[in-house]
Structures are given as structure tokens and as C-alpha cells.
């Protein structure tokens, strides 16, 4: 569960202060799929960076699975990111030197998992996104849709509680975008909480609810559909 209370984030230079987040309060329950909407510059990505423990915030409180994360060391934050959060980016952010298998392996390496366990996690994640046959390909040899599926496999291989997706279909055509959204829905149904930033209302409607950010402030919430009951049966989801 993710809980923010009056979180503020200000970017400062010598001459200017930019209020990226203004007293944002949001609660995302376990298993929820929430879309964050808003125009460019509204603070969506900053919200995601703060939620993903990639940037500190200035005031307010932030709890992740019940633990206050406002004053943790870099090492603890890195561990929390590694164990609890999976990231999906608009530009995929795969490591160009590494092949598909090694890309998915990255977060597991930092968890110091034994090789056999890592292998099992990687193959399961790649099977889930349907890209096992491209295991030895490097990102440049894949299409955008395939790259995003690899990024999703990398995000879920560590079985995180949260998936934070920043415009995950922004660089994809509509058909591929639909496939990626199907995949995210499937992952959500398996119990993973998803927070997705988008400015596409069509995609947002596939979440349980959407919240709107304007000028760093949460404005309103729309509820589209009730939450599905989580299914732990990975095999069934893969089939």
C-alpha cells in the first residue's frame, strides 16, 4: 500500500523555485490499478519519481507498505526500490549492451539471488510477456513493442508489490499499445499494484480509477470500474 500525505516537491535554482508537487495526498491500496493523468509539466513524472524513491521530497509523509520512507539511507532506498518497486518507462530504458536475458537479470543481480533462482525468475517473466524466443537479442534488434515487453518482464521479475509505469505506451503504435495494456492488466489481476502515468484518457479508463494532477496539485478522481480479485495462478495467466 502506498500512502502520501501533503507531499511537496520544489526544484530550486539560484534564481527560481519550481513547485513540482504541492501538498499531494494519495492512497493506493494493494492490488489497485491507478492512472495519474495530467497535461505536460503538471508534475506527473515528479510524482512517479518520488513514489519510486528516485527523488526525495521536501515536506509531507510517504509510507510504502506501512513504512515511512522519508528519512532512509541511500542503501535502504535502493533495497526498497529493488524489492518492492518495478519501473516501466516510456522510452523502455533497456541497457543497450545487454541482451534480453541480461536486462531482465539486472534487478535480480542487485538482490544477490542465487543463479538458479535468477534463471527461473527470468524465464518465467519472459514467458509471461511472450518474448522467450528473443532471449539472446540485444534491444537494438527488437521492435518498440518487444522492447517494452522486455522492460515489463524486467519490472516484474523481482515480483515487486508496485509497478510504476511512466507513459508505458507513449512510444508505441495503437495495436502494440493495446497489447502492452493487456499485459499490464493481466499483471494487475495477478495482484501487483500499478500506478501508471498517462495523458491518454482511453488508456486511463483501463485502470480502476484515475487521478488528475494539474500544476502539481491533485484535482479530482474518476472511478472507472471496481477492482478485480487478484489471481495468484501465474500459469493460468500465462496460458
Amino acid at each position, binding site marked *: 500500500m502506498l500512502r502520501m500525505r501533503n507531499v511537496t516537491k520544489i526544484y530550486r535554482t539560484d534564481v527560481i523555485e519550481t513547485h513540482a508537487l504541492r501538498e499531494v495526498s494519495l492512497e493506493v491500496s494493494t492490488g489497485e490499478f491507478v492512472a495519474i493523468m495530467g497535461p505536460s509539466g503538471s508534475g506527473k513524472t515528479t510524482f512517479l519519481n518520488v513514489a519510486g524513491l528516485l527523488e526525495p521530497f521536501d515536506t509531507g509523509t510517504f509510507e510504502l507498505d506501512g513504512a515511512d520512507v522519508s528519512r532512509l539511507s541511500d542503501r535502504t532506498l*535502493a533495497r526498497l*526500490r529493488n524489492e518492492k518497486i518495478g519501473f516501466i518507462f516510456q522510452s523502455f*530504458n533497456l541497457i543497450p*549492451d545487454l541482451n534480453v536475458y541480461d536486462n531482465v537479470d539486472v534487478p535480480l543481480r*542487485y538482490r544477490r539471488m542465487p543463479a538458479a533462482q535468477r534463471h527461473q525468475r527470468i524465464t518465467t517473466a519472459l514467458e509471461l510477456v511472450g518474448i522467450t524466443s528473443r532471449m539472446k537479442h540485444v534491444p537494438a534488434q527488437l521492435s518498440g513493442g518487444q522492447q517494452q515487453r522486455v522492460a515489463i518482464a524486467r519490472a516484474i521479475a523481482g515480483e515487486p508489490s508496485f509497478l510504476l509505469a511512466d507513459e508505458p505506451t507513449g512510444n508505441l503504435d495503437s495495436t502494440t499499445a493495446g497489447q502492452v495494456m493487456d499485459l499490464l492488466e493481466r499483471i494487475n489481476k495477478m495482484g501487483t499494484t500499478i500506478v501508471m502515468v498517462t495523458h491518454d484518457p482511453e488508456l486511463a479508463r483501463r485502470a480502476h480509477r484515475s487521478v488528475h494532477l494539474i500544476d502539481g496539485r491533485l484535482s479530482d478522481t474518476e472511478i472507472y470500474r471496481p477492482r478485480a480479485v487478484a489471481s495468484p495462478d501465474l500459469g493460468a495467466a500465462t496460458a
Partner: protein
Amino acid sequence: MLGYYLRLALKSFTRDPGATALMVFAIALGIGVCVMTLTVYHAMAGNPIWWKNDRLYAVTMDSWAAERPAIRDQPQLPPWQLTYTDATYLFNSSIPERKVLMYPVAAVVMGGNQGKPLKVTSRVTSADFFPMFEAPFRYGSGWNASADAGPEPVIVLSYDLNERMFGGANSVSRILRWNNHDFRVVGVLDRWQPQPRFYDLTKGHFNEPEAAYVPWGWGKALQLRTVGEAKYWKFEKLDTFEQLLGSEVTWIQMWVELPDAKARTRMQTLLDTYWAEQRKAGRFARPQNNRLTTVSQWLRDNQVVQDDNRLLVVLAFVFLGVCLLNTVGLLLAKFLSGAPVVGIRRALGASRSQIFIQHLVHAGALAFAGSLLGVGLTALFLWGVRSMYGGDPDTSSGGYQALAHFNVISLVWVTGLAVVAALVAGLYPAWRIGRVPPALYLKSQ
């Protein structure tokens, strides 16, 4: 994780071979120049018989003229060598456990495989030379004191001369001609090359030991004059060998081995007493300056390591510093160009310290490659030094060519400098890349 980091480093090398080669070469060049200088310096500065530093002493006394010192730029020192009169008197003392008188001579040898006369350097010396300076024997042994007095026609050959004359075979008991006299080989030395050649520094500090050794008595018997240093301060007629023996010319080297401080005190007393008697008899116009000098002090007094060499070492380190500074710049540029990937790794759970270690391993791998190439360059540079100073060790530049070899000391230096290079070149770039805010690059990648 180290294996993983190493794999990432190797992957990165292949992605960017030009920049990698440049960095490796910069490190190698710095290490190569530094280790070459250090190897030569170490060989020059080392005491090749350090374990006997509290036992071996060069014997000197100031027999020079009243109006000027024997050594102009070190007026506090007596002359390096003794007169024949003083040396032979002191040699009769029973205080030292071992004692050596000696001087180098020219000789012509013939025999064995050597059909034609061969000019070699030789040393007229006393029996204790070999055990005192721990010269190792391949075959046979040295001679005893009675052979010195006889003198007996016995000879000890160096390893190289034995190779040349007898093909390396055991030549003990074989007869050869030495300066037109038959000599019986009693011993063949193993490879032996003390650097610096501490026991005789008069004509170059790093010359090779002589090719043959004959008993002390042959010097007088064959009236052999020194080919080493002979210095005098007053005009004397030296037409005959007898005149030389009775002159104030200093040309005999004397070393003693004293087992303890008590023996050293007794030997010093003997020197001072003898000096006082001679002064009464009208010799020794200068103040009393009789010395028993340890090998380390002897090397310092002889300025075996000169200030120029020390400066050269400093310059070599400065050069290494410049090379490493270039590497720091290149590495920093390379690491920062990989900042977006670091951002991804941070998002996926890498801590700052993990990023730091990953990049430090990268720098370490570069330094390792640099040190391997550095070994090659060092060997090449040392070969260059040998070539530059090549030729006859007796006539060329103090025998530098003999000490410019890649050895264990060089390897230790390479290893040490590789670690330093990895740390110096890698620390700042690795620290800097670890501080990159991950979110900055994730959107823009």
C-alpha cells in the same frame, strides 16, 4: 558481484575499443617509465650484502697531504684506498675474522677451448675474498692463506670465463696460462653479480666482477700494477715496482669482517695506534681520520645513488601522475556518458556504493590491462637502457647495462603502481558517477 562487475567492464571495453586502448596505453606508459626508473634506482640504491652490514667494513685512513683533502667534494673523507705499506701492515692483524687486500689487474689468459690469448680483467686478492663476500662456487672452492703467501699458482674463474674456456664443464684441476704462467683452476664461481659492486667502486659502480682471481702474493711476484684507481698527492719516483710499494700512492683496497662491536673497537684502536706511530715517524700530516665503514655507508660515501637519479625518480612519478590525470579525464568522460544506464541501474535497485564499486572494478580492470602492457613497455625501456649503455662494462658508463633487467623488484613495482593507478584513475570518476541523480536521465534516455 565482483565477477558481474568485471563482466560489465569487459563488455564496456569492447563497446569502446578506441578510448579503452587510449586509457590502457596511458596507464602502461606511465607505469613503464616509472618502473624502468625505479628498477634502475633500486638496483643502484640497494645494498647487495645487507645481511652483513654490521660485519663488513672498508678500511681507510687519511694519508693525504696537509694542504688539501683526498676527495675534493667530500673533504671529510679519507682516500678510498690504502698505500701498500699501510695495507700490508694492517693485514697482519689477527683481530678481523676475515680480511682482504686486493686490486684489479689486467691479464691475458689462454688454454682450454681458448686457443688465442684472451684479455680479461682479473683481481689479485687474498683467500678470504670468497667467503667474506659470499661469492658462490659452481665447482671447487677458493684457496687458503698459505697460497697467498707462497704464492701458489692457483686461480678461480668466473662463470662466464669458464663457459668460454671450458664450455661450462668442471674445470677444477685444469691448467691454463695466466699472464704467461701456468695456473691450476681450483674453483669456478657460479653466476655472481653484486649490484652495486660494493667491494670496488673506483672505476664505475655497477661493473661486473672480474673474470679471474689469483692469490695476493702474485701481485708482488709478477710485479702487477693496478688497472684500477691509483692516486697520489706528492711527487715520488715510481720507476720500479719496489718504488711503488714503498710510495704514498693509494691503490690497495682493504676490507675486514669483524664479528662484533668489541672486535670493531679493537680494530679501530689498532688503526689509531698505527696512525699515531706513523705520524710520530713524520707521515700523516692531516688530522686523524681512520675509518671502518659499513657497506651501506660506503655506498653513500661513494655517492652510488646521486641526486640526479633521485630527481629522475621524482620526474618519473610526475610523468605517471600526468598519465593518470589523462586517464582520469578519459574515464570521467566515459563514465558520465554512461550516466543514463547508471540511472536505470539505480532505478532497478543499485545503491550508490554498488555503482561506485562497479566503476572502480572497471578502472581496476583498465589498470590491470595497463599494467600488463606496462610490463612489456618496462622490459622494452630497460632493453633500451641496456642498448644505450651497451659495450664493455669496464669502459662504458659505470656498467648501467648490467642492472637494467626486468626482475622481481620490477614486478612488485608494477603490481603496486597498478593498484595506485586503479585507485587514482578510478576513485574520482567512480565517486562522481555514483552521485548522479538517477531520475535526471530516466525520462531523457
